[in-house]
Protein backbone atom coordinates (compact mmCIF):
# COMPACT_ATOMS: atom_id res chain seq x y z
CA UNK A 1 0.00 0.00 0.00
CA UNK A 2 2.82 2.37 0.82
CA UNK A 3 4.73 1.42 -2.28
CA UNK A 4 2.96 3.86 -4.54
CA UNK A 5 4.78 6.47 -6.53
CA UNK A 6 7.26 4.17 -8.22
CA UNK A 7 9.08 5.90 -10.98
CA UNK A 8 8.02 4.20 -14.16
CA UNK A 9 10.97 2.38 -15.73
CA UNK A 10 12.22 4.11 -18.82
CA UNK A 11 10.06 7.16 -18.27
CA UNK A 12 11.44 10.65 -18.50
CA UNK A 13 13.96 10.47 -15.73
CA UNK A 14 14.56 14.15 -15.12
CA UNK A 15 10.90 15.03 -15.44
CA UNK A 16 9.86 12.36 -12.96
CA UNK A 17 12.54 13.43 -10.56
CA UNK A 18 11.38 17.02 -10.74
CA UNK A 19 7.82 15.99 -10.09
CA UNK A 20 8.41 13.49 -7.31
CA UNK A 21 11.31 15.02 -5.44
CA UNK A 22 11.39 18.77 -6.01
CA UNK A 23 8.04 19.42 -4.29
CA UNK A 24 9.85 18.59 -1.06
CA UNK A 25 12.45 21.30 -1.38
CA UNK A 26 10.98 23.36 1.46
CA UNK A 27 11.05 20.34 3.75
CA UNK A 28 14.58 19.46 2.69
CA UNK A 29 15.74 23.00 3.33
CA UNK A 30 13.96 23.19 6.68
CA UNK A 31 15.59 19.94 7.80
CA UNK A 32 19.02 21.02 6.54
CA UNK A 33 18.64 24.41 8.15
CA UNK A 34 17.93 22.90 11.56
CA UNK A 35 20.66 20.31 11.19
CA UNK A 36 23.29 22.83 10.05
CA UNK A 37 21.97 25.88 11.93
CA UNK A 38 23.30 28.10 9.21
CA UNK A 39 21.44 29.37 6.15
CA UNK A 40 24.37 29.19 3.71
CA UNK A 41 25.51 25.75 4.78
CA UNK A 42 21.90 24.58 4.63
CA UNK A 43 21.60 25.71 1.02
CA UNK A 44 24.80 23.88 0.12
CA UNK A 45 23.57 20.74 1.80
CA UNK A 46 20.23 20.85 -0.03
CA UNK A 47 21.83 21.42 -3.40
CA UNK A 48 24.29 18.62 -2.78
CA UNK A 49 21.48 16.33 -1.60
CA UNK A 50 19.33 17.05 -4.66
CA UNK A 51 22.20 16.17 -6.96
CA UNK A 52 22.97 13.00 -5.08
CA UNK A 53 19.30 12.09 -5.05
CA UNK A 54 19.13 12.64 -8.79
CA UNK A 55 22.11 10.38 -9.40
CA UNK A 56 20.61 7.71 -7.15
CA UNK A 57 17.09 8.11 -8.52
CA UNK A 58 17.38 4.73 -10.27
CA UNK A 59 17.61 3.09 -6.88
CA UNK A 60 14.51 4.79 -5.55
CA UNK A 61 12.09 1.93 -5.05
CA UNK A 62 8.92 3.83 -4.38
CA UNK A 63 7.59 4.61 -0.97
CA UNK A 64 7.68 8.18 0.19
CA UNK A 65 9.93 10.35 -2.00
CA UNK A 66 10.00 12.85 0.84
CA UNK A 67 11.40 10.40 3.39
CA UNK A 68 13.90 9.27 0.78
CA UNK A 69 15.07 12.82 0.06
CA UNK A 70 15.27 13.58 3.78
CA UNK A 71 17.48 10.56 4.29
CA UNK A 72 19.89 11.91 1.70
CA UNK A 73 19.75 15.43 3.16
CA UNK A 74 20.58 13.98 6.53
CA UNK A 75 23.58 12.09 5.12
CA UNK A 76 24.86 15.19 3.35
CA UNK A 77 24.44 17.24 6.49
CA UNK A 78 26.35 14.74 8.58
CA UNK A 79 29.16 14.69 6.03
CA UNK A 80 29.27 18.48 6.07
CA UNK A 81 29.20 18.56 9.86
CA UNK A 82 31.94 15.98 10.32
CA UNK A 83 34.17 18.12 8.09
CA UNK A 84 33.95 20.96 10.57
CA UNK A 85 33.56 19.09 13.80
CA UNK A 86 36.08 21.26 15.60
CA UNK A 87 34.13 24.44 15.27
CA UNK A 88 30.88 22.63 15.76
CA UNK A 89 31.68 21.20 19.16
CA UNK A 90 31.94 24.75 20.40
CA UNK A 91 28.40 25.44 19.38
CA UNK A 92 26.58 22.23 20.18
CA UNK A 93 27.51 20.84 23.46
CA UNK A 94 24.91 18.99 25.44
CA UNK A 95 25.71 21.17 28.41
CA UNK A 96 25.20 24.30 26.33
CA UNK A 97 21.52 23.75 26.94
CA UNK A 98 21.67 25.96 29.99
CA UNK A 99 19.17 28.77 30.03
CA UNK A 100 21.86 31.42 29.82
CA UNK A 101 22.98 30.52 26.33
CA UNK A 102 19.48 30.17 25.02
CA UNK A 103 18.62 33.55 26.50
CA UNK A 104 21.61 35.04 24.75
CA UNK A 105 20.50 33.53 21.48
CA UNK A 106 17.07 34.94 22.03
CA UNK A 107 18.36 38.41 22.73
CA UNK A 108 19.28 38.87 19.12
CA UNK A 109 15.94 39.77 17.68
CA UNK A 110 15.71 40.30 13.99
CA UNK A 111 16.74 43.89 13.34
CA UNK A 112 14.09 44.21 10.67
CA UNK A 113 11.29 43.07 12.93
CA UNK A 114 7.89 44.14 11.75
CA UNK A 115 6.63 46.94 13.98
CA UNK A 116 3.00 45.91 13.57
CA UNK A 117 1.20 43.29 15.59
CA UNK A 118 2.96 40.53 13.66
CA UNK A 119 6.08 41.50 15.62
CA UNK A 120 4.90 39.53 18.62
CA UNK A 121 4.26 36.52 16.45
CA UNK A 122 7.63 36.91 14.71
CA UNK A 123 9.39 37.20 18.05
CA UNK A 124 7.68 34.09 19.24
CA UNK A 125 8.70 32.23 16.10
CA UNK A 126 12.31 33.40 16.53
CA UNK A 127 12.27 32.25 20.12
CA UNK A 128 10.97 28.84 19.13
CA UNK A 129 13.51 28.60 16.30
CA UNK A 130 16.44 29.27 18.58
CA UNK A 131 15.08 26.95 21.24
CA UNK A 132 14.91 24.16 18.66
CA UNK A 133 18.42 24.97 17.46
CA UNK A 134 19.65 24.80 21.03
CA UNK A 135 18.60 21.22 21.66
CA UNK A 136 21.25 18.64 20.82
CA UNK A 137 21.07 15.92 18.23
CA UNK A 138 19.56 13.42 17.80
CA UNK A 139 16.64 14.99 19.66
CA UNK A 140 16.52 18.04 17.40
CA UNK A 141 16.10 16.12 14.17
CA UNK A 142 13.37 13.95 15.70
CA UNK A 143 11.38 17.02 16.70
CA UNK A 144 11.94 18.73 13.34
CA UNK A 145 10.88 15.65 11.38
CA UNK A 146 7.80 15.09 13.48
CA UNK A 147 6.49 18.52 14.37
CA UNK A 148 7.66 20.61 11.42
CA UNK A 149 7.70 18.04 8.64
CA UNK A 150 4.84 15.94 9.94
CA UNK A 151 6.51 12.61 9.25
CA UNK A 152 4.97 9.56 10.89
CA UNK A 153 6.97 7.64 13.49
CA UNK A 154 7.57 4.94 10.89
CA UNK A 155 8.93 7.47 8.40
CA UNK A 156 11.19 9.06 11.02
CA UNK A 157 12.48 5.61 11.89
CA UNK A 158 13.20 5.04 8.19
CA UNK A 159 14.93 8.40 7.73
CA UNK A 160 17.06 8.19 10.85
CA UNK A 161 17.69 4.45 10.73
CA UNK A 162 16.58 3.63 14.26
CA UNK A 163 13.66 1.61 15.68
CA UNK A 164 10.32 3.33 16.34
CA UNK A 165 10.81 2.98 20.10
CA UNK A 166 13.97 5.06 19.83
CA UNK A 167 12.12 7.65 17.77
CA UNK A 168 9.50 7.89 20.52
CA UNK A 169 12.02 8.37 23.29
CA UNK A 170 14.02 10.93 21.29
CA UNK A 171 10.86 12.88 20.62
CA UNK A 172 9.89 12.75 24.27
CA UNK A 173 13.29 14.04 25.36
CA UNK A 174 13.46 16.68 22.68
CA UNK A 175 10.03 18.00 23.55
CA UNK A 176 10.82 17.93 27.26
CA UNK A 177 13.86 20.14 26.59
CA UNK A 178 11.74 22.50 24.53
CA UNK A 179 9.03 22.60 27.17
CA UNK A 180 11.64 23.50 29.74
CA UNK A 181 12.93 26.32 27.54
CA UNK A 182 9.72 27.67 26.18
CA UNK A 183 6.92 26.99 28.63
CA UNK A 184 8.21 27.83 32.11
CA UNK A 185 9.39 31.23 30.89
CA UNK A 186 5.84 32.44 30.53
CA UNK A 187 4.78 30.80 33.77
CA UNK A 188 7.70 32.15 35.76
CA UNK A 189 7.01 35.61 34.52
CA UNK A 190 3.41 35.33 35.59
CA UNK A 191 4.36 33.97 38.96
CA UNK A 192 6.89 36.70 39.64
CA UNK A 193 4.42 39.30 38.55
CA UNK A 194 1.66 38.00 40.76
CA UNK A 195 4.07 37.56 43.67
CA UNK A 196 5.01 41.22 43.61
Amino acid at each position, binding site marked *: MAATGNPAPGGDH*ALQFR*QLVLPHLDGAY*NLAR*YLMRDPTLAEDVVQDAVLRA*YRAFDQFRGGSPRAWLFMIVRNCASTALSGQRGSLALVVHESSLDEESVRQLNEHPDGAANPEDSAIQADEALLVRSAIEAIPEPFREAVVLRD*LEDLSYAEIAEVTGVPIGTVMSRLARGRAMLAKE*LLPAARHAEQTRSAK
Partner: protein
Amino acid sequence: MTKACADQELLLGGLVDGELDAANTAMTEAHVLRCEGCREELERLHAVRSLIRGEGVRHQAPQALRSRISALPELNLKPANQNRVAGWLGPGLAGALAASLAIAVLPNGSQSVVEQQLVSSHVRSLQPGHLTDVQTTNQHIVKPWFNGRIDFAPPVPELASVGYPLAGGRLDSIDGKTVAAIVYHRRLHVVNLYVWPGDKGAARSFQKDGFAIEEWSRGGLRYSAVSDIPVADLKNFQKQFIAAAG
Protein backbone atom coordinates in the same frame (compact mmCIF):
# COMPACT_ATOMS: atom_id res chain seq x y z
CA MET B 1 3.42 20.82 39.70
CA THR B 2 2.67 17.14 39.94
CA LYS B 3 5.03 14.83 38.19
CA ALA B 4 3.95 12.67 35.28
CA CYS B 5 4.37 8.91 35.53
CA ALA B 6 7.66 7.84 33.99
CA ASP B 7 6.10 4.81 32.32
CA GLN B 8 3.53 6.98 30.56
CA GLU B 9 5.93 9.41 28.95
CA LEU B 10 6.20 7.71 25.57
CA LEU B 11 2.51 6.87 25.50
CA LEU B 12 1.59 10.50 26.11
CA GLY B 13 3.75 11.51 23.17
CA GLY B 14 2.14 8.85 21.03
CA LEU B 15 -1.27 10.09 22.07
CA VAL B 16 -0.45 13.67 21.11
CA ASP B 17 0.89 12.47 17.76
CA GLY B 18 -2.06 10.21 17.09
CA GLU B 19 0.31 7.28 16.68
CA LEU B 20 -1.17 4.89 19.24
CA ASP B 21 -3.42 2.02 18.26
CA ALA B 22 -6.98 1.96 19.55
CA ALA B 23 -6.20 -0.12 22.65
CA ASN B 24 -3.28 2.04 23.79
CA THR B 25 -5.19 5.22 23.02
CA ALA B 26 -8.06 4.10 25.23
CA MET B 27 -5.68 2.97 27.97
CA THR B 28 -3.66 6.17 27.96
CA GLU B 29 -6.72 8.39 27.82
CA ALA B 30 -8.16 6.52 30.80
CA HIS B 31 -4.91 6.94 32.70
CA VAL B 32 -4.80 10.67 31.97
CA LEU B 33 -8.28 11.05 33.43
CA ARG B 34 -7.11 9.49 36.70
CA CYS B 35 -3.65 11.03 36.95
CA GLU B 36 -3.17 14.74 37.46
CA GLY B 37 0.56 14.66 36.72
CA CYS B 38 0.03 13.05 33.35
CA ARG B 39 -2.82 15.40 32.59
CA GLU B 40 -0.50 18.36 33.13
CA GLU B 41 2.20 16.69 31.09
CA LEU B 42 -0.26 16.14 28.26
CA GLU B 43 -1.19 19.82 28.35
CA ARG B 44 2.46 20.78 28.25
CA LEU B 45 3.01 18.49 25.28
CA HIS B 46 0.11 20.07 23.44
CA ALA B 47 1.40 23.54 24.31
CA VAL B 48 4.93 22.77 23.08
CA ARG B 49 3.60 21.15 19.96
CA SER B 50 1.47 24.13 19.04
CA LEU B 51 4.41 26.47 19.68
CA ILE B 52 6.65 24.44 17.38
CA ARG B 53 3.94 24.28 14.75
CA GLY B 54 3.36 28.02 14.97
CA GLU B 55 3.74 30.20 11.94
CA GLY B 56 7.28 31.23 11.01
CA VAL B 57 9.06 28.35 12.71
CA ARG B 58 9.45 26.13 9.70
CA HIS B 59 12.03 27.43 7.25
CA GLN B 60 11.17 27.71 3.58
CA ALA B 61 13.65 27.18 0.82
CA PRO B 62 14.92 30.58 -0.38
CA GLN B 63 13.88 31.50 -3.89
CA ALA B 64 17.54 31.71 -4.95
CA LEU B 65 18.11 28.09 -3.96
CA ARG B 66 14.95 27.03 -5.70
CA SER B 67 16.01 28.70 -8.94
CA ARG B 68 19.55 27.39 -8.66
CA ILE B 69 18.30 23.85 -8.29
CA SER B 70 15.77 24.17 -11.11
CA ALA B 71 18.60 25.41 -13.29
CA LEU B 72 20.92 22.48 -12.54
CA PRO B 73 21.89 21.05 -15.92
CA GLU B 74 21.27 17.49 -14.71
CA LEU B 75 17.63 18.25 -14.01
CA ASN B 76 17.02 19.93 -17.32
CA LEU B 77 17.15 17.06 -19.73
CA LYS B 78 13.60 17.63 -20.85
CA PRO B 79 14.33 20.02 -23.72
CA ALA B 80 17.21 17.82 -24.80
CA ASN B 81 14.95 14.77 -24.84
CA GLN B 82 12.36 16.53 -26.90
CA ASN B 83 15.00 17.48 -29.39
CA ARG B 84 16.30 13.97 -29.47
CA VAL B 85 12.88 12.48 -30.07
CA ALA B 86 12.27 14.98 -32.84
CA GLY B 87 15.75 14.48 -34.25
CA TRP B 88 15.49 10.73 -34.38
CA LEU B 89 11.97 10.31 -35.46
CA GLY B 90 11.34 13.41 -37.48
CA PRO B 91 13.12 12.59 -40.70
CA GLY B 92 12.87 8.83 -41.11
CA LEU B 93 9.96 7.37 -39.27
CA ALA B 94 6.26 7.52 -39.85
CA GLY B 95 4.56 10.55 -38.36
CA ALA B 96 2.02 8.39 -36.63
CA LEU B 97 4.71 6.57 -34.66
CA ALA B 98 6.30 9.85 -33.64
CA ALA B 99 2.98 11.21 -32.52
CA SER B 100 2.10 8.18 -30.45
CA LEU B 101 5.53 8.15 -28.80
CA ALA B 102 5.32 11.80 -27.99
CA ILE B 103 1.98 11.29 -26.37
CA ALA B 104 3.20 8.31 -24.41
CA VAL B 105 6.34 10.00 -23.18
CA LEU B 106 5.47 13.61 -22.61
CA PRO B 107 2.00 14.74 -21.55
CA ASN B 108 0.81 11.36 -20.33
CA GLY B 109 3.94 10.86 -18.31
CA SER B 110 3.37 14.06 -16.40
CA GLN B 111 -0.35 13.52 -16.04
CA SER B 112 0.04 10.04 -14.64
CA VAL B 113 2.62 11.32 -12.18
CA VAL B 114 0.09 13.87 -10.96
CA GLU B 115 -2.55 11.16 -10.70
CA GLN B 116 -0.11 8.99 -8.82
CA GLN B 117 0.71 11.85 -6.48
CA LEU B 118 -2.97 12.48 -5.80
CA VAL B 119 -3.51 8.85 -4.87
CA SER B 120 -0.29 8.67 -2.82
CA SER B 121 -1.22 11.83 -0.99
CA HIS B 122 -4.67 10.47 -0.28
CA VAL B 123 -3.23 7.21 1.05
CA ARG B 124 -0.67 9.08 3.14
CA SER B 125 -3.37 11.29 4.59
CA LEU B 126 -5.13 8.22 5.95
CA GLN B 127 -2.22 7.38 8.23
CA PRO B 128 -2.71 8.40 11.83
CA GLY B 129 -2.15 12.09 12.44
CA HIS B 130 -1.76 12.97 8.78
CA LEU B 131 -5.25 13.78 7.71
CA THR B 132 -5.64 17.38 8.81
CA ASP B 133 -3.49 20.25 9.98
CA VAL B 134 -6.53 22.15 11.08
CA GLN B 135 -9.13 19.81 12.45
CA THR B 136 -12.58 21.21 12.78
CA THR B 137 -16.07 20.87 11.45
CA ASN B 138 -16.36 24.65 11.26
CA GLN B 139 -15.92 26.08 7.77
CA HIS B 140 -15.24 29.51 9.31
CA ILE B 141 -12.07 28.09 10.83
CA VAL B 142 -10.86 26.09 7.85
CA LYS B 143 -11.16 28.89 5.31
CA PRO B 144 -9.14 31.52 7.22
CA TRP B 145 -6.60 28.86 8.16
CA PHE B 146 -5.60 28.64 4.50
CA ASN B 147 -5.08 32.41 4.35
CA GLY B 148 -1.43 33.29 4.38
CA ARG B 149 -0.46 29.70 3.73
CA ILE B 150 -1.49 29.73 0.11
CA ASP B 151 -2.10 32.56 -2.32
CA PHE B 152 -5.57 31.56 -3.36
CA ALA B 153 -8.79 31.11 -1.43
CA PRO B 154 -10.55 27.78 -1.96
CA PRO B 155 -14.25 27.68 -1.13
CA VAL B 156 -14.94 25.59 1.97
CA PRO B 157 -18.68 24.89 2.12
CA GLU B 158 -20.14 22.76 4.88
CA LEU B 159 -21.80 19.73 3.34
CA ALA B 160 -22.94 17.87 6.47
CA SER B 161 -26.61 18.31 5.56
CA VAL B 162 -26.04 16.34 2.36
CA GLY B 163 -23.96 13.64 4.03
CA TYR B 164 -20.41 14.93 3.67
CA PRO B 165 -19.39 16.58 6.96
CA LEU B 166 -16.33 18.82 6.84
CA ALA B 167 -13.40 17.33 8.78
CA GLY B 168 -10.69 19.97 8.29
CA GLY B 169 -7.93 21.00 5.95
CA ARG B 170 -4.24 20.73 5.36
CA LEU B 171 -1.59 21.75 2.88
CA ASP B 172 -0.21 19.24 0.48
CA SER B 173 2.12 19.22 -2.46
CA ILE B 174 1.07 18.02 -5.88
CA ASP B 175 3.18 18.40 -9.00
CA GLY B 176 5.55 20.82 -7.29
CA LYS B 177 2.76 23.13 -6.22
CA THR B 178 1.42 23.75 -2.76
CA VAL B 179 -2.22 22.81 -2.85
CA ALA B 180 -5.08 23.07 -0.40
CA ALA B 181 -6.52 19.76 0.71
CA ILE B 182 -10.00 20.07 2.15
CA VAL B 183 -11.08 16.97 3.99
CA TYR B 184 -14.65 15.72 4.10
CA HIS B 185 -16.06 12.57 5.59
CA ARG B 186 -18.54 10.20 3.99
CA ARG B 187 -19.72 7.84 6.70
CA LEU B 188 -16.43 6.20 7.76
CA HIS B 189 -14.62 7.15 4.56
CA VAL B 190 -12.51 10.15 3.75
CA VAL B 191 -12.77 12.43 0.73
CA ASN B 192 -9.68 14.53 0.05
CA LEU B 193 -10.48 17.50 -2.16
CA TYR B 194 -7.31 19.01 -3.61
CA VAL B 195 -7.55 22.57 -4.89
CA TRP B 196 -4.97 24.61 -6.75
CA PRO B 197 -4.97 27.59 -9.11
CA GLY B 198 -5.39 26.78 -12.76
CA ASP B 199 -8.35 26.12 -14.98
CA LYS B 200 -6.66 23.94 -17.50
CA GLY B 201 -8.37 20.76 -18.44
CA ALA B 202 -11.92 19.59 -18.73
CA ALA B 203 -13.81 17.74 -16.05
CA ARG B 204 -12.96 14.07 -15.95
CA SER B 205 -13.72 11.06 -13.88
CA PHE B 206 -11.50 8.04 -13.55
CA GLN B 207 -10.20 5.39 -11.19
CA LYS B 208 -6.64 4.71 -10.17
CA ASP B 209 -5.38 1.96 -7.89
CA GLY B 210 -8.95 1.39 -6.75
CA PHE B 211 -9.59 5.02 -5.80
CA ALA B 212 -12.19 7.14 -7.52
CA ILE B 213 -11.07 10.55 -8.74
CA GLU B 214 -13.26 13.41 -9.95
CA GLU B 215 -11.62 16.43 -11.47
CA TRP B 216 -13.10 19.72 -12.54
CA SER B 217 -12.21 23.40 -12.95
CA ARG B 218 -14.18 26.35 -11.71
CA GLY B 219 -13.48 30.01 -11.06
CA GLY B 220 -9.80 29.74 -11.95
CA LEU B 221 -9.24 26.79 -9.62
CA ARG B 222 -8.67 23.14 -10.43
CA TYR B 223 -10.34 20.61 -8.16
CA SER B 224 -9.49 16.97 -7.71
CA ALA B 225 -11.52 14.84 -5.30
CA VAL B 226 -10.00 11.49 -4.29
CA SER B 227 -11.70 8.82 -2.23
CA ASP B 228 -12.40 5.14 -1.85
CA ILE B 229 -16.16 5.70 -1.85
CA PRO B 230 -18.13 4.44 -4.88
CA VAL B 231 -17.82 6.50 -8.05
CA ALA B 232 -21.50 7.51 -7.92
CA ASP B 233 -21.05 8.73 -4.35
CA LEU B 234 -18.06 10.83 -5.33
CA LYS B 235 -19.91 12.26 -8.32
CA ASN B 236 -22.67 13.26 -5.93
CA PHE B 237 -20.09 14.87 -3.66
CA GLN B 238 -18.82 16.88 -6.62
CA LYS B 239 -22.36 17.97 -7.49
CA GLN B 240 -23.10 19.02 -3.91
CA PHE B 241 -19.80 20.83 -3.55
CA ILE B 242 -20.30 22.83 -6.73
CA ALA B 243 -23.87 23.62 -5.73
CA ALA B 244 -22.79 24.83 -2.30
CA ALA B 245 -19.63 26.62 -3.37
CA GLY B 246 -21.51 28.58 -6.02
